[in-house]
């Protein structure tokens, strides 16, 4: 397995693939207070399926972590503070895709968990090169996706949540996916809720969701 930690434009990255050669690529964004190395197992499983899995440290995290990140996040309404980290991270997505495209990588997908899931919803309409999107344990409302519905027509979106999640309601994601399904009947959208899982999912639910995620990217990018 090829694995390389490096940075581009000051963004710390962890690339995992079978051999480092150009291939379909999935950008992977972690949750709040974690970093690109946290989901190494998921990156490796993406690589085993034939992708370049690119873990990215979001603003304020990992290699560019704020020592006072908790203080920053708690300084105001949570979503308002989190959005201050999401916006610069989102602004970097086109830069990363430019870089990868120039190196011959593609097509592109994006996957994110919780904080990363929020980013994935927004990135889906922010950069048209992202054809396949998986948003996990996230609520799309923060980026006002109904105002950008047209941009989702070309996107294959799979969202999954925990039904017992005390932090992130599953309903907004379910509603948004249902809205896309009715608006674009020929599109590819899927939603799954795991009723007994909260924000830290039951292992069996996680395995099932992740297995479907791999299949989703295979269908969309390979």
């Amino acid at each position, binding site marked *: 397995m090829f694995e390389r930690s490096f*940075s581009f434009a*000051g*963004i*710390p990255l962890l690339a995992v693939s079978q051999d480092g050669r150009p291939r379909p690529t999935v950008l992977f964004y972690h949750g709040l207070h974690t970093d690109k190395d946290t989901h190494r197992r998921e990156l490796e499983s993406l690589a085993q399926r034939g992708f370049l899995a690119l873990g990215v440290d979001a603003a*304020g995290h990992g*290699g*560019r972590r*704020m*020592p006072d990140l908790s203080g920053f996040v708690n300084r105001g309404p949570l979503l308002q503070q989190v959005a201050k980290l999401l916006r*610069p991270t989102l602004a970097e997505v086109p830069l990363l895709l430019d870089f990868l495209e120039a190196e011959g990588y593609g097509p592109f997908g994006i996957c994110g968990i919780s904080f990363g899931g929020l980013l994935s919803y927004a990135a889906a309409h922010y950069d048209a090169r992202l054809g396949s999107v998986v948003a996990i344990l996230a609520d799309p409302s923060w980026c006002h996706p109904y105002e950008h519905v047209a941009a989702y027509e070309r996107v294959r979106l799979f969202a999954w949540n925990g039904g017992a999640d005390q932090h992130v309601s599953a309903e907004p994601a379910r509603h948004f996916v249902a809205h896309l399904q009715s608006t674009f009947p020929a599109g590819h959208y899927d939603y799954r809720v795991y009723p007994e899982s909260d924000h830290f999912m039951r292992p069996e639910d996680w395995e099932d969701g992740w297995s479907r995620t791999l299949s989703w990217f295979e269908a969309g990018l390979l």
Partner: protein
Amino acid sequence: MYVNRWIETHAHIRPNKVALIDRVSGVSFTYLDLHRSSHVQAYRLASLGVQAGDRVAVYSQNRPEILELLLACGLLGACLVPLNWRLTPQELEKIVADCQPKLTFVEPGLPGGEGLQAHSIFELQTVPAEPVALPRVTPETPLAIFYTGGTTGVPKGAVLTHKSMQANAWNTIGGWGLSPEDIAPIFTPMFHTGGLNVVATPLFCLGGTLVLPGNFDPAKSLEIIEQEKCTFVFLVPTMYEMLRQAPGFSRSRVAHVRKWISGGAPCPKTLFEAYWGEGIPLIQGYGLTEAGPNTFGVSFEDAQKRSGTVGVPLPGIEVKLSDSEGKEVPVGTAGELHVRGDHVMSGYWNKPNETAQVLEDGWLATGDLAYRDADGFYYICGRRKEMFISGGENVFPAEIEEVVLTHPNVAEVAVVGVPHPKWGEVGRAYLVLKQPAEHNEAELVEHLQKTLAKYKVPKEYVVMDSLPKSAAGKVLKRMLMENQEAGAAAR
């Protein structure tokens, strides 16, 4: 012509060349990255209200953000003021009151910064970066203010313009023979010109690579020099002493370093000899905040052959040595060193009178005494204000200190002139000893008399646990004198 053009040019010509490696975070920046990130930071500063002519202060250890902020200020026509985090809150207050920054960024958790009205340097990454039109920047636009005066009293802000930093970079590249392949760690703090302008900005100008190793730890620093295959090392003498004593230090581990320069304070001859004995070509640099700082260059061969020389002026720098009446002194005679060139500061911030005292017709009076040999090589004798007259003879403390340090029991020394009823002034040596219990003053005097004329041998000796030093590692002689006088008054 301007500092930002360096980065822009490299971003186009060699976009993937690594410009900066931050060993603390593991993040590195290519020239294209740095070009982009400096623009992003400029837009962020603009969205926080920074405009051309404003000052932006930063209170942080060496981090990529300081370099990004410098470049961002350059793009906006603003001026960066790196604040010394070794100062007391009262000293910082004076500097902030003097330069009145539009914004101040601090590294949270860095002691001493609590009293500053500031933003977290880490939170700068969360500020929106909407592109704005950038103003026209001229060569005379101030780019950085470095506060100096730790050894002489009230801090004065030396203003370096785009032109002066450009000239320093060119002088250094040409005079020291820097190459785009050079890789240099920045161990000295960037709140001093030594941290930012001895190597960092010249290498950016040239397209070389900087390494930010974090805090200086001898063993770790040695490891980083080795791992990053550094080719150019600049340290202050204290750091050189610590590095030499790091476990596993040997020439073979650092053989790729082709240039070793000591600066910030006079380097004892014993330390040079220790490095030379290892086969490491350490040489003495000389510079000052108000000019560059880089002023002279010397080959290793000449450094060995002409003990104590700082070399010859770098290209683009005029030098003259003057007596107290302003007349140039002949070869071999000490005079005050004056330098002229585009690398010289535009003046002290908000201090026209102090500026006029040191700048005349472009000549900067350095306050340092030096002499020139018949071949044109220069030798620094010490500070003009430190020179004292004993029995009608000029005495240069630096010369005496050099000799005192050859005594095996002396770890550190500072010599000052004190009033004397018979000789007018005599030398007083403040000593830090390796084995205080073994101190024998008579034996030390005998040792000095072997090398020094009698009038140069200090008449008084004070043993101390340590010497007070500035952030740059310079001994604070004024503080030594004040403490001594206060002690005498109390007695």
